[in-house]
């Protein structure tokens, strides 16, 4: 079943047209990754799905329903959660309050279970429960951002460069969690990465975005073996 479909989406990032007619589909239960250089339009694509900014042209369909005119707090209601670029945790609130905010739309009845699940996934967050989120390390903040998104029990999880600026050990942990969420919870995931190696290894399918256009697509493993992809995004890059 098709969960998410972008058809000919054009979106501006400020005065610049960052997406110039993009087609992307995500099937339910898939991990799809979007790789590309800085400024290719990856983050703009994720934000467009959430409704901020809205596309100038094209369609964003979620389970067959057009959502391009919905504001972000409405798209969140449909079960779309985003771990945005730069994490955007609330720095002057505690870890626990950040999780509470993540659960804004969920049924309070399963809050405790969801929080326990997140603490299980990232035990360090339990230790830091009452600490201000701004005092966490980069890796911990990234874990918090993911946990916060999970608190809404999303059906589609959008992740924007979760590995950026993190130590290799933490990157591995985060990619393990992503794989696990997909495998055990059947969560559908759209992952944006510059760390193409990890992302392609993990993904069922992948798109390569270049200057606002999809220039290549295929299975994750296929793109990993593709010489052009290797030359542009893998060789010489950080693994």
């Amino acid at each position, binding site marked *: 079943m098709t969960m998410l479909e972008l058809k000919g989406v054009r979106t501006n990032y400020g005065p610049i047209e960052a997406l110039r007619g993009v087609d992307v589909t995500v099937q339910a239960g898939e991990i799809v990754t979007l790789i590309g250089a800085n400024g290719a339009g990856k983050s703009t694509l994720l934000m467009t799905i959430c409704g*901020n900014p809205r596309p100038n042209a094209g369609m964003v369909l979620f389970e067959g329903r057009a959502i391009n005119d919905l*504001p*972000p*707090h409405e798209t*969140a209601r449909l079960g779309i959660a985003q771990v*945005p670029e730069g994490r*955007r945790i*609330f720095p002057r609130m505690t870890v626990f309050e950040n999780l509470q*905010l993540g659960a804004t*739309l969920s049924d309070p009845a399963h809050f405790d279970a969801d929080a326990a699940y997140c603490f299980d996934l990232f035990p360090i967050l339990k230790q830091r429960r009452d600490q201000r989120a701004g005092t966490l390390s980069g890796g911990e903040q990234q874990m918090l951002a993911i946990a916060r998104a999970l608190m809404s029990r999303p059906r589609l999880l959008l992740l924007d460069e979760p590995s950026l600026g993190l130590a290799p050990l933490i990157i591995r942990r985060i990619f393990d969690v992503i794989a696990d969420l997909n495998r055990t919870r059947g969560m559908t995931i759209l992952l944006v990465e510059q760390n193409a190696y990890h992302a392609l290894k993990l993904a069922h399918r992948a798109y390569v975005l270049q200057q606002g256009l999809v220039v290549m697509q295929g299975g994750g493993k296929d793109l990993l073996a593709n010489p052009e992809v290797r030359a542009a995004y893998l060789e010489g890059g950080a693994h």
Partner: protein
Amino acid sequence: MDSAVALGTFLQHLINGLTLGAIYGLIAIGYTMVYGIIRMINFAHGEIYMIGAFVGVTGFTLLSAAGVGSVALGLLAVLVVSILFTAAYGWTVERVAYRPLRGAPKLAPLISAIGMSILLQNYVMLTQGARPKPLQPVLVGGLTLWRGENFDLSISYIQLFIMLLTLVLMLGFTQLIQRTPLGRAQRACEQDRTMAALLGINVDRTISLTFVMGASLAAVAGVLVTMYYGVIDFFIGFLAGMKAFTAAVLGGIGSLPGAMLGGVLIGLIEAFFTGYVSGAYKDVAAFSVLILVLVLRPTGLLGRPDIEKV
């Protein structure tokens, strides 16, 4: 002057200052909360308080005409009605004058606020008349705390009521901001509006509710001041608004405890300046504080530096 009288006088100024400070604090919360969430000084907030006072006078007058004898019941009714009316004004002002300018340069909503302030002043002047409105004392009497030969230290019931109600409201309000989902949503919008929306928080509605909450507290301040001074006019919002704004800046604009602290300090400064220096220049004292704070410590006593994100 013997030392007992000197102490008594000091304490009397303290009581008067705390009463005044409580009222400034209630108004200041509205400035600070709105600034916190949309980084804008709502210069029409003083007028919101003035409208609260007018609803108060009208309410008390109607009740006494209807022959309602119970002070407690009447007071409660007037407070509730004033809060409802004033909150509606607060909501409308935001909806009409500020929301359309979201995303516009910062100067635009500021000018819109000043326009709103002038509009509301003139609207009240036209509909209610320009002459001061008197009110029969609602709560009379008081306690004499200390009786000297030619000096009594006293606290009136209305002063006591003002201080207690303000204390209760501020404690309740702090809990609301710290513990409830609404308070959390407000703090989230304050820190990162885009992210708050991604989590499903309706940012526009949260901002509206912030205006409603600020206006409600201003309504209480308006009713209290009416009872305290017994006379109001359409222009009281300007000076009180400026003083409360000063209080918010002194405490650190954006900080809730700061607004409360700043309000009390401005009230005390005014009372002591009136008592020991000159009543005619009390406003000069209050606004000198504003200038000094802006020059020496722009973040205020409890504020934190506003770091612009890049």
